[in-house]
């Protein structure tokens, strides 16, 4: 087996090895399945309850994507505004940091009071938790523009809007896509937090319910599915990043340094 195929297989090998060690540890140390079920038990539970798991993971996936979509739209707009003007940056930044420091789990009860049990609080929590990195990265992309390039354009009579459209926004792309990978995983956290606190569907709800019924293997089955969804969405945005901003990887912005 050559180096390249080994590299392609590495993620799979590591995943399999992790499950193997987990399985072995449960058997060797005779761990109570009530404390930590072996992965085989989790997979058995997955097979038994596949209908429920499919339904709940679909709910979690779509609420996460909905919240994430709002976060992208809102984050990009706010990032452009913050990166546009120093005054807005100064004024808004402390507020945003304060907002981001509030644990979202504390906000969920309020959202449930406002919108009732259901998908809306989950979507909003996913949005609230994931927009911050997008704003920061988009604003950084704009703010780190080369001053000389700005001079070249300003000397030609370019307005601020011209500079943003021709240089600022395109050069923000790699920053944006980098932040999407962080934001999508955060969005899952938001959805699950909200579903755990109060919902009637979704993997978070299922985990809370199965936990209170002492169906620990089912809890782990749901956790594994959640991890799979997270990895899949991360992969989608990692691919989008390399696809849309190939120039940034090729040049590693070296033309600008």
């Amino acid at each position, binding site marked *: 087996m050559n180096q390249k195929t080994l590299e392609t297989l590495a993620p799979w090998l590591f995943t399999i090895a992790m499950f193997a060690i987990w399985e072995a540890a449960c058997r060797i140390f005779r761990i109570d399945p009530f404390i930590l079920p072996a992965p085989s038990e989790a997979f058995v539970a997955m097979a038994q309850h596949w209908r429920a798991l499919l339904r709940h993971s679909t709910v979690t996936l779509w609420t996460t994507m909905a919240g994430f979509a709002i976060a992208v739209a809102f984050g990009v707009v706010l990032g452009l505004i913050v990166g546009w003007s120093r005054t807005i940056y100064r004024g808004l930044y402390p507020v945003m940091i304060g907002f981001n420091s509030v644990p979202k789990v504390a906000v969920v009860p309020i959202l449930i009071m406002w919108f009732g049990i259901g998908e809306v609080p989950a979507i909003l929590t996913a949005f609230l938790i994931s927009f911050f990195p997008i704003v920061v990265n988009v604003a950084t992309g704009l703010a780190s523009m080369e001053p000389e390039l700005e*001079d*070249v354009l300003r000397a030609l009579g370019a307005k601020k809007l*011209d500079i943003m459209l021709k240089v600022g926004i395109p050069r923000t792309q790699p920053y944006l896509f980098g932040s999407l990978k962080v934001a999508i995983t955060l969005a899952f956290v938001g959805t699950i937090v909200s579903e755990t606190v109060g919902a009637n569907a979704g993997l978070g709800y299922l985990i809370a319910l199965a936990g209170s019924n002492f169906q620990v293997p089912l809890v782990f089955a749901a956790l594994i599915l959640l991890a799979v969804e997270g990895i899949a969405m991360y992969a989608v945005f990692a691919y989008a990043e390399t696809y849309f901003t190939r120039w940034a990887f090729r040049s590693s*912005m*070296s033309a600008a340094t």
Partner: protein
Amino acid sequence: MNGFVDISNVTLNYKGASGGVLALQGTSLRISRGEFAAVVGPSGCGKSSLMKLVTGLVPADAGEIVIFGDKVAGPVKIAGMAFQNPNLLPWRKVIDNVLLPLEIVEPHRRRFRQHKQQYREQARVLLATVGLDGFGERYPWELSGGMQQRASLCRALIHQPALLMLDEPFAALDAFTREELWCVLRDLWQEIGFTVVLVTHDLREAAFLADSIHVMSARPGRIVMSKAVDLPRPRELDICYEARFTDIVHELRAKIAQVRQA
């Protein structure tokens, strides 16, 4: 007679957190139309501030700058600029980088969409003059540093500016590439006939290219010496090894050593 660029008694103060820095004080300089002027001086003497003043990016605190009869009160729009760093946009092909000024400056801006083919042809011709024939469809990262700087010169010239401002454009290049680009710039200037202000550290570069060399003092910067270079044109690189050339360089060197002491 008035010059093309007329800087009279200009003062510029940079306001920083730790108090203002007097960058230029009582600076005067006159450059005629079509002249190739070089500004040399010790580092930190405000040469780059002078560029920003002339292009109208920074307003002077005192004194006035007149370009072609108009007092500078904002970005001048008839200038092209190039810096030590080529600053090409990595997501645009070389030719689209060169075309960037036309998307901004009037009247090209309005005509750009309809006459795109014509403008592209114009950019192709310009790229060919600097030896980048066939590189237009490549991306900047596929080009060497010297080639990127050639493209940057094209971008500064595509809108046919009457004034070309260069801030140490060749400082980051190796010696051979630098001399190659001297000749590229010399040929462009002789062919098109724009006015050039070249800010540089390199005295040989100034002597080889310029009609007149202006020495600036340490901060606050002032012009302390202006020297006409009467070497015949067209100049070849061999001239750098002739006695009259080295005399000029020596004279400039002595003057700069003296202002650095002061």
